[in-house]
């Protein structure tokens, strides 16, 4: 059954030769039975025909073309002569080829690239080790020169003083500090007295030369840690 709307959709294609011959025949058959579609088709064809003729008429006449060609030729000759893409000399072509080869990148699968790199590495390693092996017996031993060099020795003396600070439970901060300071003084006194009473000579710094470097080791802890 003919439907004008559907047929009109195909009319432009029919006018512009965009439908297959069989389909064109069918559409034309439908147009035969529908004056409205026939009129639409005629209008389209007329429009295209008039446009084509108008476009053709707008073009310049025959006597325009020789001049146009001359102008074109002059323009081409003047613009083309310095380019000369195909007339390059051999050296230029070789240079271009080399440059192209140097800048061209080639896609290589990762395993192949890795294998190549490993092989190159092995090759260089082997080359180097062989070079070293060849080099070692032939080269004469370097003369040993003995020089006396004075090296400053750092006198170091480790002074260890164990300080016990008696910790008590929870105290108020100010009071605790006072007590800690008192305890520390007492402990120092005891330690000094202990060394005197044990018969051993008390530690002294006689003969100790101070150096630029001083190492002080502080062992922090309590008697409970010692246990």
């Amino acid at each position, binding site marked *: 059954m003919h439907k004008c709307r559907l047929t009109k959709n195909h009319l*432009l*294609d029919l006018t*512009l030769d*965009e439908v297959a011959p069989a389909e064109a025949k069918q559409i034309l058959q439908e147009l035969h039975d529908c004056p409205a579609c026939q009129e639409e088709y005629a*209008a*389209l064809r*007329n*429009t*295209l*025909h*008039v*446009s*084509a*003729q*108008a*476009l053709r*008429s*707008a*073009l*310049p*006449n*025959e*006597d*325009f*073309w020789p*001049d*146009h*060609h001359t*102008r*074109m*030729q002059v*323009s*081409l*000759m003047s*613009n*083309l*002569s310095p*380019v*000369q*893409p*195909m*007339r390059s000399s051999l050296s230029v072509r070789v240079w271009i080829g080399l440059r192209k080869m140097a800048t061209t990148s080639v896609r290589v699968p990762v395993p192949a690239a890795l294998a190549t790199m490993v092989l190159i590495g092995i090759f260089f390693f082997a080359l180097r080790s062989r070079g070293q092996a060849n080099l070692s017996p032939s080269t004469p031993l370097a003369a040993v020169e003995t020089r006396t060099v004075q090296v400053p020795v750092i006198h170091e003396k480790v002074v260890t003083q164990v300080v016990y600070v008696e910790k008590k439970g929870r105290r108020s901060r100010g009071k605790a500090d006072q007590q800690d300071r008192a305890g520390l003084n007492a402990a120092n006194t005891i330690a000094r007295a202990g060394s005197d009473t044990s018969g051993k000579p008390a530690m002294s710094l006689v003969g100790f030369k101070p150096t630029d470097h001083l190492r002080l080791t502080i062992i922090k802890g309590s008697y409970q840690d010692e246990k």
Partner: protein
Amino acid sequence: MSSEDELIRRAQAGETDAFCSLAQAYERRIYSLAFHYCRGRQDSEDLSQEVWLKAYAALATFRWESSFYTWLRKITINCFLNHHRGGARAFPWPIQLAGSATIDDRAIENHARSAAAGLETTLENRLVVEKVMQALSETTPRQRLIFLLKHQEGMTYEEISKELGCSPGTVKKSVSRTLAKLREQLGVNEEPENYISCAATGILR
């Protein structure tokens, strides 16, 4: 081997004379397309020259996979689209037949005289031509190019869509819009007695 193939090979070898002979064979088609696309004589001349220069520069890339004209048309389309993107002058209206001469005064004068003789033999002819040009001036450069490729070059929707990188449906829609503009200008949508009688204008034969 045809003479055209021979000319192409010689041009590829760097013979500019051979290339000029090739250009002579197709310069009318290229100029016509450019003339209808941009309408200005100066622009048409520049555009067609640009096409030929680009074609010469790209001649080494011609691989004989298509005809020389198909390859050349591809370059032409790219040139036209770039020309438009590069801020080309607007489609001039009315038609400049006796405008200021810039290329070559004598040539322009000849062109103007010949065009005038061809176009304006009758007032009716001129009226129809003006209406068609007016309709085309109201389209976008892309729509105009699609219409010209379809209508003047006889390319299929498929070919145009490939060249312009769009769908065949877009091409069809574009042609349809241009045709609607043409029909509107020519008065084809109006009552039959009101629209320009093509037969009377002497254009239709």
